[in-house]
């Protein structure tokens, strides 16, 4: 099985700023990490490789410094990484981002043993759209919110195409599904606890050669890339008003606590909540 894991580099803090003109994030000067939810996709891929062999390839689209995310993925256990970077990619929405990722997956090659694993969503953009959108560009099946994954039996006929057995977490339970490969999954935290980078992994990561693919390598027309190619546009940004005036009561002893609890119940009553 070959696992391809698109990851995203995100700002470490929540104090990032936005460019008021373009409505996109200013990432300069903020420490960057692998999107924490992507670590679960990497871990799921490593475990599939341990059980069934194959390789794990990490992909990321971003500025040239996003290569550090790929080195970190290699330090954790990825066999190799590919950076997707080009000036024309900047400011992409999920449509334009998934287009680039799809072209990269295609360039890596898709066969009956290929599984693309994505995090549920990125904690900065918080859309969860890129995984399903990537599948749609590639015209592959997609299963989202996957909490468990295993390779299934090859269907009768012996076409060489694989299949995986999945559990999908929904609002009211777990769907049990079988998906033919090639395919795309997005995984949730439940799937496995991510491992830490190892010393040997870190050494390998430092030495790893990481190719960079841009617009030319991917053969993408400029009009579908970056901000210019994005169907959606941020038109304005506003700080949400913090209008809650907290009624805060100190309750250092039992009597004060009884009074505070009574006041809370009266407060809830006024709001028709009890």
């Amino acid at each position: 099985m070959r696992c391809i894991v698109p990851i995203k580099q995100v700002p470490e803090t929540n104090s990032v700023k936005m460019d008021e003109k373009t409505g996109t994030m200013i990432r300069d000067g903020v420490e960057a990490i692998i999107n924490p939810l992507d670590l679960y996709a990497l871990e799921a891929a490593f475990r599939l490789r341990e059980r069934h062999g194959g390789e794990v390839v990490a992909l990321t689209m971003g500025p040239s410094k996003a290569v550090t995310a790929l080195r970190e993925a290699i330090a954790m256990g990825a066999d190799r990484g590919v950076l997707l970077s080009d000036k024309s990619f900047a400011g992409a929405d999920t449509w334009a981002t998934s287009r680039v990722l799809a072209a990269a997956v295609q360039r890596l090659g898709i066969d009956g043993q290929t599984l693309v694993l994505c995090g549920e969503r990125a904690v900065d953009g918080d859309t969860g759209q890129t995984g399903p959108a990537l599948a749609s560009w590639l015209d592959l099946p997609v299963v989202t919110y996957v909490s468990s994954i295993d390779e299934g039996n090859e269907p009768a006929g012996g076409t060489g195409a694989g299949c995986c057995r999945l559990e999908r977490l929904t609002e009211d339970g777990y769907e049990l599904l079988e998906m033919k490969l090639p395919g795309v999954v997005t995984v949730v935290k439940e799937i496995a606890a991510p491992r830490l980078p190892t010393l040997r992994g870190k050494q390998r990561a430092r030495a790893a050669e990481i190719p960079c693919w841009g617009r030319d390598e991917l053969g993408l027309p400029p009009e579908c890339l970056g901000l210019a190619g994005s169907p959606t546009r941020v038109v304005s940004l506003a700080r949400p008003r913090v209008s809650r005036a907290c009624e805060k009561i100190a309750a250092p002893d039992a009597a004060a606590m009884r009074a505070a609890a009574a006041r809370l119940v009266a407060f809830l009553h006024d709001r028709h909540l009890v």
Partner: protein
Amino acid sequence: MNTQNNREIWVLGEQRDGRVLPVTHELLTRGRALADTRGALLSVVLCGDAIDERDMAELGERGADRVVAIEAPELVHFDCERYTACLIELVRERDPEIFIAAATTTGRTLMPYLAIKANTGLTADCTGLEIDPQTGLLLQTRPAIGGNVMATIRTPSHRPQMATVRPRSTAPAPRMPGRAGAIERRKPKADALASRVRRTGFIPREESHDIAEADRIVCVGRGVRKAEGIAPARRLAERLGAAIGGTRDAVDRGWLSYPHQIGLSGKTVSPTLYVGLGVSGAIQHIAGMQTAGTIVAVNTDPDAWIFRFADFGIVGDLFEAVPAIIEALPAASAEGKK
């Protein structure tokens, strides 16, 4: 129906076992407001099999001008490829100018897959939707960067303008007895029913309360100190008719399972009432609950960040606060608010 230029606005209906889910009624509130502003026809479009006739009529009572059900036994459960194939055909046929869905596990999967096939943009998890009076375009407002900023987004030149809407971010559209919408049942083309995913079973969640849809939530944080500390929180939740949620800390320590996690790396919730017990209010957690109607916090630290976002706070020990609150609650509320 006062429609001009055959404009259509669509909302995606959701069903389970043939019964229309209430989240559809919330979308009708959004859709009706947009359709009235645009002078457009409001349609509910849904996939399923043998969808309940009364439920479909109820969608008319709640503001739909038309209900289009695409039905086949293969559509009884959500299947991204099949639902997309059915809907893309209808999108191409009728060219809606706006198509919105709930940001549920179904909506958040189907809409991005469909948007690529329809060659259009999509905005996730909106909390506000309105029509720009100047351009007539859909203004899609959503929290960005952890809820610190609200971004307003437009899809200027692609159609339909697509968005998912955060569940519980609006009230369900009221029933207007006597109001009716046209009901249309369609069969999909056979080639729309191909899929490479097969459903082999279903394991229902052991606890029925899904926190993303819960009307009331009691949330525990690190302040409960150990797994046994969950017990008082559960008692309060039971008394309030609330679901139980936890911070990332509470889940990482194994006190609650992942589906209960609230925050950026868990669920985003918007209940009428949120009660945080021993929750400090990490920004990642705040981002997942700050749209709650009323926020109550109990924490020993008077400077806990959560108090800045709360309507009511008790500075004190949750193990003393919970019994005191339960005692103060009127006895009737235990019965009436299930």
